[in-house]
């Protein structure tokens, strides 16, 4: 028993060093050299300052931006320091209320649009940080965004196409639109009323 205890202690120590220090630090070292952009959070950097991550969504509910999916993180939506889903059951009355409210807000933002609203736009994501909306959810919002910005729907539509990621290798996952990338691209387009200047909103 005593030798078992000694061996167990030594084994735990040795395997801790191997799998708890050598392994994660070696992976960190390689990752930082070979994939440093991804390993540090796929950050979008401007003027040497991080201004977001392509993998982490942000909240948008201004008519001139494409709205992101509802987020259940607390205390504010898209809190990337504390990921969370709503965990509401489909039979929970609060869930149906939440969907009804979201539908109402979307309808109010674009009263002329009678098309049914894509499901992902009225349901909270699993992480609360979903960086994407579906292609249908983006299309549903094109006219509203174009109107709010005084842009042609075609121009906005092209930006949506540019921000669309297809299935990976044409096969895996779902087609989707990166919300932060799309809204940043929108901000880079000079508004029609404004004088065109080469530096306006450049990325």
């Amino acid at each position, binding site marked *: 028993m005593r030798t078992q205890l000694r061996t167990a202690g030594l084994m735990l120590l040795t395997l801790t060093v191997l799998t708890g220090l050598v392994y994660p630090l070696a992976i960190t070292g390689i990752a930082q050299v070979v994939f440093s952009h991804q390993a*540090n959070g796929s950050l979008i950097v401007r003027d040497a300052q991080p201004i977001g991550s392509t993998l982490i969504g942000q909240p948008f509910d201004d008519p001139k931006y494409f709205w992101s999916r509802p987020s259940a993180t607390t205390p504010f939506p898209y809190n990337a320091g504390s*990921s969370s889903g709503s965990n509401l059951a489909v*039979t929970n009355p609060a869930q149906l209320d939440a969907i009804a409210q979201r539908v109402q807000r979307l309808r109010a933002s674009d009263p002329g649009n009678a*098309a049914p609203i894509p499901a992902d736009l009225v*349901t909270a994501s699993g992480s609360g940080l979903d960086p994407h909306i*579906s292609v*249908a959810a983006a299309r549903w919002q094109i006219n509203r965004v174009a109107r709010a910005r005084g842009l042609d729907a075609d121009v906005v539509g092209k930006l949506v196409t540019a921000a669309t990621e297809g299935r*990976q290798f044409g096969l895996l996952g779902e087609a989707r639109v990166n919300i932060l990338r799309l809204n940043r691209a929108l901000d880079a387009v000079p508004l029609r009323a404004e004088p065109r200047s080469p530096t306006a909103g450049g990325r």
Partner: protein
Amino acid sequence: MSSAALLQVGLYLAALLLLVKPLGSYMARVCEGRTGGVLRPLRAVEQAVYRLCRVNPAQEMHWKQYAVAMLVFNALGFVVLYVLQRVQGWLPLNPARLGPVSPDSAFNTAVSFVTNTNWQGYGGESTMSYLTQMLGLTVQNFVSAGSGMAVLVALVRGFVRRQAASIGSFWVDLTRSTVYILLPLSVALALVLVSQGVVQTLRPYVRVPLLQATADPNGAVVTEQTIAVGPAASQIAIKQLGTNGGGFFGVNSAHPFENPTPLSNFLEMLAILLIPAALCYTFGKMVKDTRQGWVLLAAMTIVFVAALAFCWRSETQVLPAVAALGVDARTTAAQPGGNMEGKEVRFGLANSVLWATATTAASNGSVNSMHDSYMPLGGLVPMVMMQLGEVIFGGVGSGLYGMLIFVVITVFIAGLMVGRTPEYLGKKIESFEMKMASIAVLVPCLCVLVGTAVAVMTPSIGASLSNPLPHGFSQVLYAFSSASNNNGSAFAGFGANTPTMNLLLGMVMLLGRFWVKIPVLALAGALAAKKHVPVSAGTLSTHTPLFIVLLIGVVLIVGALTFIPALALGPIAEHVELAAAK
């Protein structure tokens, strides 16, 4: 079910089954100690471990010594992990300045990771320092899986050996599974995951401005987002490969930094079932009859595909009340549709239900969508997969030894039908073996039912339920099914981080793990001591389609008889309620 979705599921199953043979034979080679040739560099590591730990690899153990070694090793692991969480505030690699974890939560988490459950009552990014994640949690991710594999190898030796007193050395089996199997696979997977965008850094959390300011419920303006990062990829690789499932971040593999792309998702799902599936072939190879392994794999695959189809069908349903609001939930090329609450757009429906079924078939428990928000029958599937005892693929090692227990029971029942002494792989199954097998099957079932019953009678339970009944009851039943069978996934709205729940769930995790492992080792010892009986005309052949049917039947009947009453109070009642509302 679109053709694109079917194609992805087909590709997944094909990739999994194609890898079974190569990985399975590799693992057989390792378990039998044939580690020459290209494996020499790893053998140097293995030998170094023995030297440092003063282990004589040639010294074999009786099953009781084997069990003691395993228990002592796990007990020490528990103590270290508990202490580490309690003192992390004073230790380095803690850029977010996280304080000590509360005693009950630290107890629960330590038990959870040592037992390969990886149930999490806490949110990773807001609770655990980088040091705790690496030195505590990652280590147990490896060694708890390694312990599972060791016990399986010991049981297989029980079938192979004749009139032997020993079943191998726990230290050797643990070291070999870690050094030759878990580590190399983890290194490869971790690096691919980083290339996809999984974070791997020791830098502190990043603050970025929001493009459009938002507000918190008190109306305060929020203009910044703090993005949690950390050494995640190295932990996620082993969390998937070792059927652990404990996430680096609170929402596990739904988090874009744990699972950023469809490719990362595909590989992580593959990693969930990879080793448990391949071990079937390893088993066949070691007992020198690969048909025996294929039969077990076939039984597992059949149940898995059936469960998957059922779950998938449930999640594509749309509530009439939601459709009436003017919501479009059809599945098209432009949107996933269906029940998207708690699911991520990049994965859509198919990859969410595939993950949910795989993670509960295996005792993995990581999630890429929130099971709590599944349709009633969609959520029933993961619950049932756990209640079957985690034998449909199951945990690394533990899944197959669980399935072999069911094989023993099946052989016994078949033997009763024809009135002959049952035997399996040339070993007679007698009263001692049946007692051990019964304990291993019944203890987790008991833990689920008694645990749930005790939990719903505690006065504070109401505060833990985040949804009205009957779903609230499902949350409790899910929690105890998960903990007792060492899965670790949850209906995550359930408030499990209370002293009572932390203790209760911690206890069933311990009972569910070790009161299977110890009887399995006893069984291994008893079998190893037996003579080999030659095949006769009366021997039930265990490599036929008939046997697959028998085995599936026994697994399903034991599960159904035990859990249908409880399920009727939870998901089934919820489904009926929903149907009545239509």
